[in-house]
């Protein structure tokens, strides 16, 4: 390589497409004059052509299959994370629902065993039983929780019972001889016994509330 290193460098720059127009014309002129550099240039060009013709290879059979069989199964947590990212509204709804159930069950659990009665003065409490005395008319809704209700008089309103039942006036009055009709409820009677129904009742009320707006 007797010729100027400078030109060899320029040849490489040219091959990399990294040469200024000025240098390029300089190189071209030099190549026309210098046989040595010309030979070098041709050899390099030929080398590149030869490299490009090198043997091509194909991946072994079933390569893709093998890769796919060896992929790690996604971690479950990852799958959930991905799912959450893709369904933000469902996630929000689920969280909302959970919180609601949580708050409902906490109200449900409050004072589980205590008898709770609505505040009408006419109601008489006898142990676990709430009595609407005979001949008395109770105004407004009656609400009894964790107790039974015996209606001898009349309730002018809805009756709601939680964890309790409406006692049959007949059986209570057996000893009392023949009685005319028992009292009545002039309104809806609703008995709620189980947690589920309790929740259902609240959800219903909640939505009633929402939709009245």
């Amino acid at each position, binding site marked *: 390589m007797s010729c100027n290193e400078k030109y060899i*460098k320029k040849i*490489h720059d040219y*091959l*990399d497409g*990294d040469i200024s127009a000025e240098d390029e014309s300089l190189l071209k002129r030099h190549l026309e004059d210098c046989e040595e550099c010309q030979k*070098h240039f041709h*050899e*390099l060009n*030929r*080398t*590149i052509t*030869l*490299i*490009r*013709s*090198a*043997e*091509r*290879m*194909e*991946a*072994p059979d079933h*390569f*893709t299959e*093998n*890769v*796919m069989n*060896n*992929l*790690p199964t*996604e971690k479950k947590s990852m*799958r959930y994370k*991905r799912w959450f990212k*893709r369904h933000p509204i469902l996630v929000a709804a689920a969280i909302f629902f959970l919180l609601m159930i949580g708050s409902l069950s906490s109200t449900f659990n409050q004072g589980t065993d205590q008898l709770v009665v609505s505040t009408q003065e006419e109601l008489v409490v006898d142990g676990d039983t709430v009595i609407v005395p005979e001949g008395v008319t109770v105004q407004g809704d009656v609400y009894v929780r964790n107790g039974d209700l015996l209606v001898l008089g009349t309730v002018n309103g809805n009756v709601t019972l939680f964890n309790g039942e409406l006692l049959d006036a007949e059986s209570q009055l057996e000893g009392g001889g023949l009685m005319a009709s028992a009292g009545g409820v002039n309104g809806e009677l609703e008995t709620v016994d189980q947690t589920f129904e309790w929740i259902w009742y609240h959800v219903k009320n909640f939505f009633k509330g929402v939709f009245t707006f």
Partner: protein
Amino acid sequence: MEQFIKKKIIQVKKGDQSAFSDVVAFYQDKIYQHCYRMLGNKHEAEDIAQEAFIRAYVNIDSFDENRKFSTWLYRIATNLTIDRMRKRKPDFHLDAEVKGTDGLDMYSQLASTERLPGEEVESRELQRYIHHEISQLPSKYRSIIMLRYLEEFSLKEISEILDVPLGTVKTRIHRGREALRKRLRHV
């Protein structure tokens, strides 16, 4: 094709594992070939190429879709081949640099007396011969020559794949070309 791959990658990111098989099928020959040329051993090449695809799958979330997937994939594959070469027995390596020289190694010290191809070489034999000559290059030149002329990456992309400054890529491709020129001049 770029668009097709891009679409598949997005599907894979969303958790569609089966979309990845199209990606593998598209790149398998290229990546396998790349690994084979780097390692010179079919068994190892298959091993490493598989590993490269698996790594790509596992780390797919860290891939930025706005960039070229092939560059990213080759980078993974190249790093794995380099690791594998390092782990090989620390025998005497011909392509270890000779101390006190810049980029020179024992190959350059050897007289080029390798067998010459016959005059009427069949083209397949010639291709094999060229492959052999490329495989004799020191790995740092070999990887660049391969990426440039067999995989047709630009110098800038090569600098990204190998994580080497652009200037170094240029120096190495010059040297690699010169080395091959000497080896292939008699063909």
